[in-house]
């Protein structure tokens, strides 16, 4: 979902090219390997899937936009960077859960927090929460595709995971199994 910040309307980006190529190659392979029936079945399924997903995707994008403008990235950084301990892990999990956007927005934030003195285990919790129980992904992708029942089940069983991964990371660091400092030479690409 990168390259979406272009202001001057539509542009055919390199990512678009990759996906177009992937669709063409897989479509051709499907036609050749699996036959015409399979190809037509895929196309029919595709149309139905698109009709099912689009109204919810539109709602998801609007929700993403609203959250983006209701929660400022600076306030996220301030609260997370100054906290640690149990509170830090819980906070990081909560913030990761509501943090919108793709890896191109979250990793610059995580790197900035790291340089600002946030604990690596807190950032592990944050990233786990963002990927596993992220509301943005849940609303935009999971509910439209997998249905509410599945999304709720997966969300509930995944709730303890961010905290758990943060605790394991903290244990690994405390046992000196892994010890390191943030490296500032890896420049954030923000």
């Amino acid at each position, binding site marked *: 979902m990168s390259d979406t910040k272009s202001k001057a309307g539509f542009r055919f980006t390199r990512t678009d090219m990759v996906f177009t190529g992937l*669709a063409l190659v897989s479509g051709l392979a*499907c036609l050749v390997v699996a036959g015409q029936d399979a190809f037509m079945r895929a196309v029919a399924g595709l149309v139905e899937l698109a009709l099912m997903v689009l109204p919810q995707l539109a709602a998801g994008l609007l929700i993403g936009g609203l959250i983006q403008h209701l929660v400022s990235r600076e306030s996220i950084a301030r609260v997370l960077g100054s906290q640690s301990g149990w509170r830090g892990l819980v906070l990081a999990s909560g913030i990761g859960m509501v943090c919108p956007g793709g890896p191109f927005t979250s990793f610059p934030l995580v790197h900035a927090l790291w340089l600002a003195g946030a604990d*690596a285990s807190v950032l592990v919790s944050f990233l786990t929460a963002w990927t596993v129980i992220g509301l943005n992904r849940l609303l935009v992708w*999971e509910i439209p*595709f997998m249905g509410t029942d599945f999304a709720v089940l997966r969300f509930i069983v995944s709730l303890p995971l961010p905290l758990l991964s943060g605790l394991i990371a903290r244990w690994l660091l405390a046992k000196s199994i892994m010890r390191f400092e943030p490296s500032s030479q890896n420049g954030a690409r923000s």
Partner: protein
Amino acid sequence: MIWSLVFMWTLVLALGLLMLQRKGGEGLAASGQYAGRQATGLIIRLPMALAAGAFLAELLPEAVMANSIGPDTGIAGILLASVLGGFIPGGPMISFPMALFIWQGGAGTPQIVALMTGWSVFAFHRVLAYETPMMGWRFSALRLAASCLLPPIAGLLALGVTTLVDIPITTTEVF
């Protein structure tokens, strides 16, 4: 499916009202523009990704997939699905259509939970494209080491919940 739609648009309405109260029409317009920009970026990519997902799913040996992570495969199926998830390429545009097709092909619900969690935490494409360049390989190693148990745990918890509650969660019949 209709409930998902109602839920989503109710949330849009609620957040919209909150925004109106806090930042007025300007906030609403800015949010709408953000959504519009995101949508513009997806116009080509999303249909192409959906098509690729549908075609790839036809090419996947679904019977093999269904047998190896089917509802009766239990813990072994959950472990296998956890690993397989890490190798699903691309972002949510590719992975969710693929997961749906695999699910409809006969995979078990706890196994799909493990698959999606495996994709979420391992996501080797994201590690290579974003995490390692920005955070360094040591951080990635720490995060992966701290996360490697999570997909099986999620799958096992889902197995427990679906067994205890006895509510069959099945795919919507798209086809």
